């Protein structure tokens, strides 16, 4: 049976449908893990809420936009200081968050006045900022505040500001994924086409589904600049509100994260006839392939080949140094969803690493189709894994390194397994050629850590463990 019922799940046997072990005999299409369905209460899942999918993942990245969260203070507090997306204007998105600080009287009598007041205060306190996204949260949705009416009123009173509303309370959908969808569709419905920017190149793209984690966007921008491609909008890494209003002006949508931003790419195709091109930006083979595809679209293949050749000459020897030392290392990926299929084959091809277990918090079945097709046999593919499952899977596959969040990282540290931040990276960026060398270096440093040997040593043991000679080398 390719679907696996783990020992820890004997009391919640429905979990069997979510855990797939790929074997040579099975027809993959028959038995994908069930995904994007409600979590079992009390199972200690890793999932977040729809609100955070909209605010924390996408909207909050914008570098010129006030993030007004209409709700109790916690929704703002908790989606602040939890991401690593710098910006080229002094890291505005990292520094600020806004809340209407809903209290009991607003729950009882309605929170619209409080919202209106908070919006005015925010613009008054930061007079240089003219753009805002307002988010609803669980309680404001439940009491039925008419947020859009408030926003309309404020925009009438303040003609120089523009405000976008995201109505996506935490309880909607089953995970973060719902929030991605709501923001995508809301934006195309209300904002795309409401501004025009100057076109400076005949080759124009929207770069969609990259959030400038540790500077990914900055790194890729160097490639676009060299290729002579104008990026109309970054959705949303280091992006601006008004650039995103101009998405209709691009000739091509280049999509990295199809899960969080594929929706808007599809709509741009439907409504504005802009083709969608999906690429992978993590990994040498993938990045090169992506550049080739984009250049082929514009008929600038030669520029692409030159860029790739130069980047390979510069970075490939460094990657190969790591590959030699990482060959056969076993890795687990426990992240949101798309990084499973972005990474499984790229770390295998470029670094010689075997990905032995993968878990997705909010991926859909199409993500599993991709990852199971790209991933290895003998590997576990899990939807919405919970803590006890992690322990059992670790026992089964014995990974050398786990890409996951910092909290789970602290947990697996006790099991003497190093973690690397799979969401925010350790020392990135990880995208592009240079980025993948960074990722290889971080994996090398994680898997060649003398502390792992020391941790396994019981000082009462009469035969001390011998540390391998030259455990670490200088790259």
């Amino acid at each position, binding site marked *: 049976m390719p679907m696996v019922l783990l020992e820890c799940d004997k009391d919640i046997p429905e979990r069997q449908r979510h855990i797939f072990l790929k074997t040579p005999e099975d027809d993959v299409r028959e038995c994908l893990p069930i995904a994007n369905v409600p*979590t079992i209460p009390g199972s200690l899942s890793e999932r977040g809420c729809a609100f955070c999918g909209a605010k924390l993942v996408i909207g909050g990245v914008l570098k010129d936009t006030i993030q007004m969260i209409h709700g109790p203070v916690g929704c703002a507090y908790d989606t602040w200081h939890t991401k690593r997306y710098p910006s080229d204007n002094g890291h505005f998105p990292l520094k600020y968050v*806004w809340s209407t600080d809903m209290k*009991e009287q607003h729950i009882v009598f309605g929170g619209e006045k409080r919202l209106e007041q908070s919006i005015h205060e925010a613009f008054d306190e930061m007079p240089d900022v003219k753009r805002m996204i307002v988010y609803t949260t669980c309680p404001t949705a439940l009491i039925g505040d008419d947020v859009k009416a408030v926003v309309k009123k404020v925009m009438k009173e303040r003609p120089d500001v523009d405000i976008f509303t995201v109505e996506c309370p935490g309880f909607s959908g089953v995970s973060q994924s719902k929030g991605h969808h709501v923001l995508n569709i809301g934006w195309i419905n209300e904002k795309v086409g409401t501004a025009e920017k100057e076109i400076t190149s005949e080759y124009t793209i929207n770069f969609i589904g990259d959030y400038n984690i540790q500077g990914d966007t900055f790194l890729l921008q160097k490639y676009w600049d060299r290729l002579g491609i104008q990026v109309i909008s970054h959705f949303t890494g280091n992006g601006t509100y008004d650039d995103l209003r101009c998405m209709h002006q691009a000739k091509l949508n280049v999509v990295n994260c199809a899960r969080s931003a594929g929706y808007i790419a599809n709509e741009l195709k439907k409504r504005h006839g802009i083709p969608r091109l999906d690429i992978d930006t993590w990994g040498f083979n993938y990045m090169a392939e992506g550049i080739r595809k984009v250049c082929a679209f514009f008929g600038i293949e030669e520029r692409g080949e030159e860029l790739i050749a130069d980047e390979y000459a510069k970075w490939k020897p460094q990657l190969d140094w790591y590959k030699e030392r990482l060959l056969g290392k076993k890795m687990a990926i426990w992240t949101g969803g798309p990084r499973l299929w972005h990474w499984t084959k790229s770390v295998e091809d470029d670094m010689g690493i075997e990905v032995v277990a993968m878990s997705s918090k909010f991926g859909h079945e199409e993500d599993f189709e991709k990852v199971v097709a790209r991933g290895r046999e003998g590997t576990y593919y899990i939807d919405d894994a919970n803590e006890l499952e992690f322990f059992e899977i670790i026992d089964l596959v014995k990974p050398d390194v786990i890409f996951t969040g910092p909290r789970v990282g602290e947990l697996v540290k006790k099991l003497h397994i190093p973690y690397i931040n799979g969401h925010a990276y350790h020392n990135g960026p990880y995208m592009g050629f240079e980025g993948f060398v960074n990722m290889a270096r971080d994996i090398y440093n994680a898997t060649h850590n003398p502390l792992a040997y020391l941790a396994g040593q019981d000082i009462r043991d009469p035969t001390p463990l011998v540390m391998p000679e030259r455990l670490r080398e200088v790259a």
Partner: protein
Amino acid sequence: MSMCEIATAKVPEIKVAPKERGGIINPMYDCQPTGGQYAGIGIKDSIPLVHGGQGCSMFVRLLFAQHFKENFDIASTSLHEDSAVFGGHKRIEEGVMVLAKRYPDLRVIPIITTCSTEVIGDDVEGTIKKCYQALADELPGRELHLIPIHAPSFKGSHVTGYDEAMKAIVKTMAKKGEPTGKLNVFTGWINPGDLKELKHYFAEMGVAANFLMDIEDFDSPMLPNKAIETHGRTTVEDLQNTANAAASLALGRYEGASAAELLKKEHEVPSHVMNAPYGIGNTDAMLRRLSEITGKEIPESLVRERGIALDALADLAHMFFANKKVAIYGHPDLVLGLAQFCMEVELEPALLLLGDDKGGRYKKDPRIAELKKHVHWDMEIIHNADLWELEKRVKEGVEYDLILGHSKGRYIAIDAGIPMVRVGFPTFDRAGLYRKPTIGYRGAIELAENIANTLFAHMEYTHDREWILNTW
């Protein structure tokens, strides 16, 4: 701040007021369920179950992981749309049974509500009765304590959430039995390093205590056998015995004092609510009270420890700290305690931001009355504050020589180039602070030396009279 400013006869202005804006820019506190969860993880064999959207527990777990660099188990009822329409009590029942079955050693499940489930109006107490019935049917003989904790996010802050949770836990669990002779110690929201310091004092005094909660293992080891020991140490029996203590000592007025008062009301346990023991004077008061309650003498060893602290502080106060204006923000008990500590070492607290929302209640705080008596410079105390209150003043040109506060305000200090010492919760951008005490005599040393070294590094980095330290 010029070292040779001439003192003037101007009457100092001391303002106590709430912030004027309604909304928040950069919150300095989280919402109530966070406090409930922090109380819940302090219990041994406990997994709190948060009744709300998944973000309400996922981000709080991350917050604790950021601060303590540890993982804590917290579950969610994973509330979705259908529950918003039809009520979410079934999600609690299912969550409790799933936890009970999959975690056979589990003894306590604090059930913590959130804004959504309070608005929906789920009957948590009624649901708990149903859960006990279901447990009796499906897992006969299984001991499991379910504790209802109401933590609507639209009231108070994570500080009031903690206070409410401590009260709810004691209310549900306390059980009259044989006197234990121990003291209940409501520690407030402190770090493992603080708890170790408290335990040390109680050991030196020869007083047996029931620490609520015992969070010493929130700093837990990597062991050769790979055991995971990150959990609270306060047991079901400890909680039950809170009713049988000789007295309760609440170290702080807003973080656990309600639980001490409840035990007095319901179980006649005498309650002593005190200032949190930040600084020398507050620590002295705690030890004196301990001596009064128990009749035990304060030992010579503590007189010496106190002397070591004074010896360390005396090297720093009038030479390096005097005339320095300080902005402080965080939990009210911490901020007021730090302000008192500042007064002891000649630092001048000029702005206090109280991260909580209790309206005028702070005006009655004896610490504020005391500050008013001694402060001879202008001082602002803003309650229901946000971090923009500090940033705005800095941007408008108010000069502070030092910021004391948690990591959420780090960019104010970074961008304005103001020396900042991390203290409070959370302090994720400095290594290992949870391991060090801030309370007690040793906490005073840690604080003062951390402040001094931060000022020294700033002097060197900015080439501001760094040559003073060429000989010291």
